[in-house]
């Protein structure tokens, strides 16, 4: 079930009506948990068992933490077991084949023979997201940042809440659980702001991302047939596609949760305008990057143990962040490119930039262009189906030369320029705030016009959100 499907709107209308009709917070949570399972079960009800398992493990770890003092060995052991169980589910469904195949390849390189055991497992949608939510709960409870929930319903609700269930944002237990405990008040819901954000997300996903996706597919399917300009155009279109797809989903998730009275943190903040890679990671998939920082980078030692260790920690975090997206070398390289850029950037700042006076807006502009260029190079590995294909496209991207002669049957560069200008203007004007500030009557009419116009630009046939596969 997608946020852009009619059946989602039908489900949401029912849930919305019920939630705001019910007065009991407990009943609201029950309705929302049930709706979340319906939402998830619409893909494949069999995978509900995984969510229930992860929920049960999280609840058990919380229960142990509640009864044991901090530092207690059993409490630590419970946390370790819980994390291993959650990661075990993730590992089995997402990484088993990757690691066994990689081991066989490695053994082959060493001159040894090993037979591969490949499981024919379907990747459950959103598994990476809800296992990270579960880990967040277990760690936050263990650290004492949040009290363990005595009701298993509460844990189930936190892990399965449908707006963020399948593609985030990854909401921390410490952020969400306090909201669960107090009844949401309709008076606190900014309906116009939520509706505006939902429409913005819908436009990004359905009107932009889905429309340019076929062009990207064409280029990445056979890059060597196309001219360098088309290939580079295709790479840039992919940057637009993935941003609009994922940030569009996040906008809709935040808006949906907001209409039900829950506040999610922002997940994107104009990342392509970042003047450096570090800043990019403060603006791109914020909930994942901050999760990795707090639950991986800092526990690894962060920047507390010298520069060399910091660089190792950075690279480890980024490589694992890449692997989180999928079990393939392409994602590892993607993470490595970002990790490498973060290290180079640190070295540059320490050894070069610090010797010169700041260059002001020119420096920021150069930084933005260089960052965007590098981010796009990394996207090639993120998008391409194979390593070989990635290198073909990356070579064209870096050298601006291609043996191909075909061009895309659409004016790529005007489309890119148009989308860029549209995005810039929407950001500059703060479209969401602009809409939310309108009087109710004007808002209703403007919303009607915009919704009708955007419907016209929805291509026929649904495309799933890119991040559902993660």
């Amino acid at each position: 079930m997608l946020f852009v499907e009619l059946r989602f709107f039908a489900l949401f209308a029912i849930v919305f009506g019920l939630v705001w009709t019910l007065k009991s917070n407990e009943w609201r949570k029950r309705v929302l948990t049930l709706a979340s399972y319906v939402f998830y079960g619409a893909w494949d009800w069999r995978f509900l068992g995984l969510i229930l398992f992860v929920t049960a493990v999280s609840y058990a770890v919380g229960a142990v933490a509640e009864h044991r003092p901090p530092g207690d060995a059993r409490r630590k052991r419970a946390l370790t077991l819980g994390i291993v169980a959650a990661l075990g589910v993730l590992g089995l469904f997402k990484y088993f084949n990757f690691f066994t195949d990689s081991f066989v390849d490695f053994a082959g390189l060493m001159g040894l023979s090993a037979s591969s055991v490949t499981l024919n497992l379907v990747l459950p949608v959103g598994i990476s997201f809800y296992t990270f939510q579960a880990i967040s709960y277990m760690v936050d409870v263990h650290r004492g940042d949040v009290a363990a929930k005595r009701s298993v319903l509460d844990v189930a609700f936190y892990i399965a809440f449908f707006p963020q269930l399948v593609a985030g944002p990854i909401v921390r237990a410490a952020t969400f659980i306090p909201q669960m405990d107090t009844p949401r008040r309709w008076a606190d819901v900014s309906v116009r702001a939520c509706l505006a954000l939902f429409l913005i997300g819908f436009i990004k996903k359905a009107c932009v991302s889905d429309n340019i996706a076929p062009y990207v597919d064409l280029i990445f399917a056979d890059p060597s047939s196309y001219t360098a300009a088309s290939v580079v155009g295709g790479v840039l279109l992919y940057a637009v596609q993935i941003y609009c797809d994922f940030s569009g989903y996040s906008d809709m998730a935040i808006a949906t949760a907001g209409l039900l009275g829950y506040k999610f943190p922002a997940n994107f903040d104009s990342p392509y305008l970042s003047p450096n890679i570090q800043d990019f990671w403060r603006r791109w998939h914020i909930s994942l990057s901050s999760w990795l920082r707090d639950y991986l980078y800092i526990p690894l030692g962060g920047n507390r143990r010298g520069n060399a260790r910091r660089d190792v920690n950075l690279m480890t975090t980024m490589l694992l962040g890449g692997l989180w997206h999928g079990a393939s070398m392409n994602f590892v390289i993607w993470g490595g490119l970002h990790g490498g850029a973060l290290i180079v950037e640190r070295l540059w700042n320490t050894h070069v930039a610090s010797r010169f006076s700041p260059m002001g807006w020119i420096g920021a502009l150069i930084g933005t262009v260089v960052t965007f260029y590098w981010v796009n190079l990394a996207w090639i590995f993120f998008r391409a189906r194979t390593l070989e294909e990635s290198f073909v496209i990356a070579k064209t991207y870096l050298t601006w030369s291609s043996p191909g002669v075909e061009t895309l049957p659409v004016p790529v560069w005007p489309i890119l320029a148009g989308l860029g200008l549209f995005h810039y203007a929407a950001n500059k004007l703060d479209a969401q705030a602009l809409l939310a500030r309108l009087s109710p009557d004007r808002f209703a009419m403007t919303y009607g016009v915009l919704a009708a116009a955007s419907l016209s630009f929805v291509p026929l046939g649904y495309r799933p959100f890119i991040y559902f596969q993660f």
Partner: protein
Amino acid sequence: MILLDTLSDPVARRTLMGRARLVGLFALVFAGVCAALSLTLRSVSPAPDMLVLTPKLEHFQTNADEYDTVFLGTSRTFYHIVPDLVEAGAAEAGCPGLSVYNFGVFGLTGAEQDYLLDAVLESDSVQRIILEDPLPQPRQFSETMTERARYFSAPAGYGAALGSVSSYPESFPKRIFRTGMFAFGAAYDLSGVGRGAALAFPEAEPPAPHTFDMSEDGFEALGDKMTDGIQARRDEFLSRPEGFEEALDLYGRSSPNIDARAAYMVGKLRKVEAAGKAASLYISPDLLELDRTAQVGKRVAETAPDLSVLNFNRPDAYPDLFERDVWYDFSHLSRSGAERLSRKAGAELCRAQTGAGEGGVNAVR
């Protein structure tokens, strides 16, 4: 209870009414802008390329001078009328020189038939048009959302579509259901969904245009081009021999709304006559419609005796068309059945034209 509480509290009631007004305002503006955009974009968008329909229409428009007789109908025209054999049958009956075009399109609805009829009526060389009773609106949501269904859900076709639905010989609840399907299709079309996208973001790999082998003047034997659906129907026909006998039992049973359907078809035939062309009603052999179309043909002949009716869906009158081995599935003849029928159609057409012997009105025996 909460609703009652709200309605009894004046402040809450005002708030509720205010919100309802805003929702209404939104819905009104949304629907209006959708419809306006949809109609505007429809007018600047090319007609979709529709399987069989588009290449047949294009062929006819390019070669209209070559034909004087056109059969216009559903798959039971498409797969049943072999133009060369209709011409041969007519010639044997004393009407040489006919040049027949098979304008059958599977799934043809009333609105689609009117659209194609208008195109045929533009041709000066066409002298006679044989109309088949078209199908009503689709019965499933998915069928209302195809490109073709959408194209024919334009406001200009509302009258034709509703006329076809309301006159179809089936029970009142079924007609209501089909009207609902029609309304859904119309709403889907007016939503404008996808129209702006199709213009602003043209297909990266446009599919090759549909083509059709016109060597048999529009005829194609069922099964020559196999699809999963055709195979499934064939398999069902072969695996259920008793179904054939069961279907034959439908003949003679009564159906509701026959008068309305007859009037509907008479209206169409009169339109052809008004354009100065000879008109005939063609009722195809169709096992599953033995209780329906056969009666429509009879009723048209009774209510408009001056009109020519070629009513072949009568096992008592045409027993050789109802031998099981000339059928491909429960609704269509095989090539051999089509050939047998086409010769008869040519002969009947000739008799209708000349008023000789047992032809024309007398075909309704």
